[in-house]
């Protein structure tokens, strides 16, 4: 049970969504955008989210698109993870999405919700970081498309009232060799100890990570050393781990030393898998 009242809004298009946000903000209702809603409802039940209104984006056509548009794969923020996996336009992204929660939950969890959520793993973002994708954001000044690298630093840096409409990925990335591995404490459902997603483009490895630090990331300094073929792979991995962008998580899922060990093993598997392809 959610221990407070809220109002529920279902805008039909992007501008109406922002208009509602602005009006509700002025009324002091502290609105939140709502897509799948699984995280909002879970946190609301625990009083970790409190809002007077939710703005459900699922009726907005732009947020529901899943199509090839010229040279771009366009994925709306309100596409459910299970629909994304079933359509499978981007196999690496399907693998990342399939690792989130369980099948029934993925019928409700959306692509955009996973990227914008408070839960730190945000695994659907890893393939976007690897493919230098763009994100389309909507807010006060209408819609803007920007590189994900400009607006994603551990989490999507949205301006007040802004929301993720869709992502755009160059289709030339879709058939490239890839690797994805999510290692959990136990079983097939749950948060990662380590997730590694990797892609090989123009002979160079690209790697992105979740579960290692308190945010998902792709790191240029790590990739530089990982692609230095003058160094043996185990040394490259050791040096790359020395260049992590933050402290290694040490929590109930795993101790930091075990995470580091598992990260090294998974990176070795990724290198072995991709260097021969």
């Amino acid at each position, binding site marked *: *049970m*959610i221990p*407070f*009242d*809220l*109002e*529920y*809004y*279902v*805008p*039909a298009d992007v501008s*109406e969504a922002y208009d*509602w946000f602005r009006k509700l903000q002025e009324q002091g209702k502290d609105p939140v955008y709502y897509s799948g*809603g*699984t995280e909002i*409802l*879970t946190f*609301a*039940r625990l009083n970790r989210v409190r809002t007077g209104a*939710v703005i*459900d984006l699922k*009726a907005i056509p732009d947020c529901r698109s899943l199509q090839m548009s010229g040279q771009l794969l366009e994925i709306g923020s309100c596409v459910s993870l299970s629909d994304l996996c079933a359509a499978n336009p981007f196999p690496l992204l399907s693998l990342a999405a*399939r690792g989130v*929660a*369980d*099948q*029934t*939950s993925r*019928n*409700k969890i959306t692509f955009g919700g996973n990227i914008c959520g408070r839960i730190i793993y945000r695994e659907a973002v890893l393939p976007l970081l690897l493919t230098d994708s763009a994100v389309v954001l909507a807010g006060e000044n209408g819609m803007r498309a920007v590189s994900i690298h400009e607006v994603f630093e551990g989490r999507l840096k949205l301006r007040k009232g802004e929301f993720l409409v869709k992502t755009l990925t160059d289709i030339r990335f879709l058939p490239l060799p890839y690797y994805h591995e999510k290692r959990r404490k136990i079983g*097939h*459902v749950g948060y990662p100890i380590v997730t590694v997603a990797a892609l090989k483009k123009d002979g160079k490895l690209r790697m992105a990570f979740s579960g290692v630090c308190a945010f998902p990331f792709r790191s240029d300094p790590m990739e530089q050393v990982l692609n230095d073929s003058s160094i043996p792979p185990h040394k490259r991995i050791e040096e790359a781990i020395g260049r992590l962008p933050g402290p290694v998580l040490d929590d109930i899922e795993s101790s930091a030393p075990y995470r580091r060990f598992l990260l090294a093993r998974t990176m070795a598997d990724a290198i072995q898998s991709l260097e021969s392809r």
Partner: protein
Amino acid sequence: MREPMPAADSVEMEVNGEKRRVNVRASSLLLHTLRNMLGLTGCKPGCENGDCGACTVLVEGLPMKSCLMLTAEANGRKVTTIEGLANSPATYAFAKNQAFQCGYCTPGFIVNCEGLRNAYPQADLETVRLWLESNICRCTSYEEIHAAVQEMLAGYRRTP
């Protein structure tokens, strides 16, 4: 544009084939509306956190955890609970295979398996495994549940 729903208002759904209108708070969860306002207590509260699957219902034929859905989101949609699945292939297969012990998780499992049959009547083992991961049985009747699902799908797999 749909009219905004104030803090409390009416929602109309087709539940188990019948049109039902309920007055609810906009913050009401589908799980509690089904149980407390419509008397459909087959939909079980378990973790109420989206983890256990005991509260699973079908929304437009697709399994959803009703503890993770606002009632307002179901407005105008078809909802099927375990009460609407009497004599379904999944119900029959679970009974025949004794795929339960205490029975608390059973409605959620059956609803999920009906959703699987709707979506993938010829589901392979990997698909079955993926779908069954959504529900937890604390009595660990997983072997029997797996057997029930295999039996339910066997007829469809034989279809040439």
